[in-house]
């Protein structure tokens, strides 16, 4: 993102405030769910699902990934593939 008109930036500021509210609500929600003492597998699924939504909001709006150039998506896609391999690697013996 670069070179914006004033109106464009003001429109974005409104989005930032909404994202901020959403992040706050999701934080309270994830802490609230943790007090329900759900079975571990369900608790992990719920907590990671909420964290994924929160991180997507930060990446999409604060880091401007909703309207970014192809080369950045390419770099991130490559890093993400290796990241998934790293996360799956410790549990390969379980599969």
């Amino acid at each position, binding site marked *: *993102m*670069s*070179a*914006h008109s*004033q109106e464009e*930036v*003001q429109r*974005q*500021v409104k989005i*930032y*405030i909404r*994202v*901020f509210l959403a*992040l*706050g609500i999701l*934080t309270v929600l*994830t*802490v609230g769910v*943790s007090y329900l003492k759900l079975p*571990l597998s369900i*608790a*992990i699924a719920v*907590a*990671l699902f*909420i*964290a994924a939504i*929160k*991180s997507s909001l*930060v*990446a999409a*709006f*604060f*880091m*401007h990934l909703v309207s*970014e*150039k*192809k*080369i*950045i998506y390419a*770099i*991130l896609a*490559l*890093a*993400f593939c*290796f*990241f998934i391999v*790293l*996360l799956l*690697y*410790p*549990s390969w013996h*379980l599969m």
Partner: protein
Amino acid sequence: MIRYISKPHPITGIINSKLGVWCFLASEIMLFGGLFSAYILLRTGVTDWPRGHELLNVPLATLNTIILITSSVTMVMSWASLEMKNLSKYRLFMTLTILLGFAFLVVKSFEYGHKFEHHHFPSTNNFYAIYFTLTGLHGLHVIGGIVVNLYFLLFGIKMWDKEPKQFAGRIEAAGLYWHFVDLVWIFLFPVLYLL
């Protein structure tokens, strides 16, 4: 001299500083990814892994989550203020971002102090080992971000008069890093404290 730092490169369509920061963040994904991988290995390797809330202070960590999320908003607002040519607002939001970064570290040091008082160290067990490693590395990133932001508040701001576009690009790049640090915490918080 680095070229294309105030106008987009004709091939990539973005300024080089942003490309550089994204490459750096990709390497950071691998750094933290390796440690998350270690966490999964340690946790799945034993039958009795403690639930985070039994050992750690969830209310304090929730407070820190809110602090870091708020600092992300003030960081993006400091960049938006530059885009709106409002330097005094930039100063305000950048100062708030730095103060919130310090607040995060103060809360974290209370948590660490409490653990040390009860003789819980990284060497105590695997849970504390990975807890201190992950939160310690994250804390170092917060300190690094504060140093960069302080530079852009006190000294780097001189660039605004001569090269406003380049300066706004620098703040956007610093913001990308700061949001990444926030993003890592968004995962650390549930993984270490809630699960």
